[in-house]
């Protein structure tokens, strides 16, 4: 090749990353399956079906999570005046992704998606594209390294202005409780006063069937997901001021009748809180 600057596939800055393992189930693809998406393979559908067989409520949880994301972004944009979002753990695109919701309220909204999964990043770069007025950026980083996440986000977000930190059902990928707490605290520490945390997460010991289904799931080869207790989820919000109605069951957080009863029985916890 003539150009010395021709990109090589070995440089992680140039390509979306390594290949995709389709021999084991994959968390983002299983969620896509539960949400009725088409971006999943046989291994994912098997793992997803197995989970549903033991705990059918997971489909409700998946729907309720997306519905909560929509209500949280609407609250943050329309009532809290937030125009910048840091979305950690993007997942595969679905309907009403964070930037679409935010840019519907204000087309100039700026959104940074963070994930470290090559499949998710390739989809995000291709499909989660911004309005001309706003910006979307995609950061290939592991949330275990909050300093790197914040540093990369700084290229797009103005850290002098409040930021909505979205952590939707991903903290269970960090099994160690102290590490999980520390990640959220360090991310929040980098955000200015007036920023918000919006989060939902799965609960342990609420449904025996769910705990059992989760154990089965963790044995499939997919990245295990640790369910937590109410107090542990509450601790993620330490130092923040909850907005009404506080930390509640996902469908009970500022319900919107126009969403229908999407996931009405979900047993996940959700909250939005402000950094003073």
């Amino acid at each position, binding site marked *: *090749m*003539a*150009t010395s*600057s*021709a*990109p*090589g*596939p070995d440089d992680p*800055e*140039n*390509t*979306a*990353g*390594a*290949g*995709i393992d*389709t021999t084991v189930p994959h968390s983002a693809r299983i969620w896509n399956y539960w949400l*009725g998406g*088409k*971006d999943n*393979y*046989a291994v994912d559908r098997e793992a997803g079906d197995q989970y549903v067989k033991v705990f059918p409520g997971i489909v409700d949880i998946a729907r309720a999570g997306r519905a909560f994301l929509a209500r949280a972004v609407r609250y943050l944009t329309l009532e809290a005046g937030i125009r910048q979002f840091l979305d950690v753990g993007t997942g595969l695109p679905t309907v009403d992704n964070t930037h679409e919701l935010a840019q519907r309220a204000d087309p100039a909204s700026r959104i940074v998606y963070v994930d470290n999964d*090559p*499949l998710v*990043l*390739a*989809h995000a*770069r*291709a*499909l989660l*594209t911004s*309005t*001309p007025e706003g910006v979307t950026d995609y950061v290939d980083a592991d949330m275990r390294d909050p300093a790197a996440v914040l540093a990369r986000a700084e290229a797009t977000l103005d850290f002098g202005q409040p930021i909505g930190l979205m952590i939707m059902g991903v903290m269970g990928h960090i099994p160690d409780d102290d590490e999980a707490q520390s990640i959220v605290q360090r991310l929040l520490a980098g955000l200015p006063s007036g920023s918000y945390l919006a989060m939902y997460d799965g609960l342990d010991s609420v449904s025996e069937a769910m705990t059992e289904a989760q154990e089965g799931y963790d044995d499939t080869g997919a990245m295990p997901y640790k369910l937590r207790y109410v107090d542990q989820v509450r601790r993620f919000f330490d130092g923040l001021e909850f907005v009404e109605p506080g930390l509640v069951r996902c469908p009970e957080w500022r319900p919107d009748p126009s969403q229908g009863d999407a996931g009405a029985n979900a047993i996940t916890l959700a909250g939005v809180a402000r950094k003073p």
Partner: protein
Amino acid sequence: MSTVEPGDELPVGAPGPTVLRMMLGNQLHQLREAAGVTAERAGYEIRASRSKISRMENGRVSFKERDVADLLTMYGVTDEQKRAGMLSLARQADTPGWWSSYSDVLDDWLDTYLGLEAAASVIRTFELQFVHGLFQTEAYARAVTMLGHKATPAEEIDRRVSLRLKRQDLLTSPDPPRVWSVIDEAALRRPVGGRSVMRGQLRHLTQVAELPRVTIQVVPFGSGAHAAASSSFSILRFAEPELPDVVYIELLTTALYREKREEVDHYMEVINHLSTQALTPDRTTRFLNEITRET
């Protein structure tokens, strides 16, 4: 979906008859399964073959209203409202797309493809040899068309080129599909139509990539690519949750359609792999500029 009058021709960007056929076919398939009727028996009922039933259920052929009525009766659908709804769908699905006025240069397989393309919400493509039809300049399209039709009169070449360019109106229609295209570097290095035509094509590609719903990624020679990616193909996705993705593979004289889940999964796996091996969209733009300078 808006209703159409008989005799209308659908504008570019309208869902087109194909997706209506697919929806109707999908419903007929479910009704037939529920009624426990084999495709052979259903075919016999409407004086057609088993494969005709299969093509109908895949939305590949148009429906005669009488055939649909006979099938509904056979499947035990007596609810008048439901029958009327499906018969109306059959009528709408018979409305020709904008491309019907190109019937003189339109092969059957392309007719089907244009219907799918117009109906898709996401089009993913992998191009090994040529720049995708939706992204071609007139000069490049002419050069490609001449390759396949050396002895064809100039007038027909014009019609074929004109059809190809008209297709591109889809990209700027009010609700365009997302087009996510992965192109092998080989397709960009081969100077189809000569260097000047190719330079124009490469510049055009850079501009098309700026469209809000178009994503282009180049797989550079240096990439390991994917062993299974031995031909160009497209995967068409439809917004309707019940409609399966369709894989489209163009051959020299015909085209293949694949929509069995296992087969689609396989192509999806290949294109996902290619998308992660390819340059990111941003890096692709810079790379296109470099190649243009070298062409």
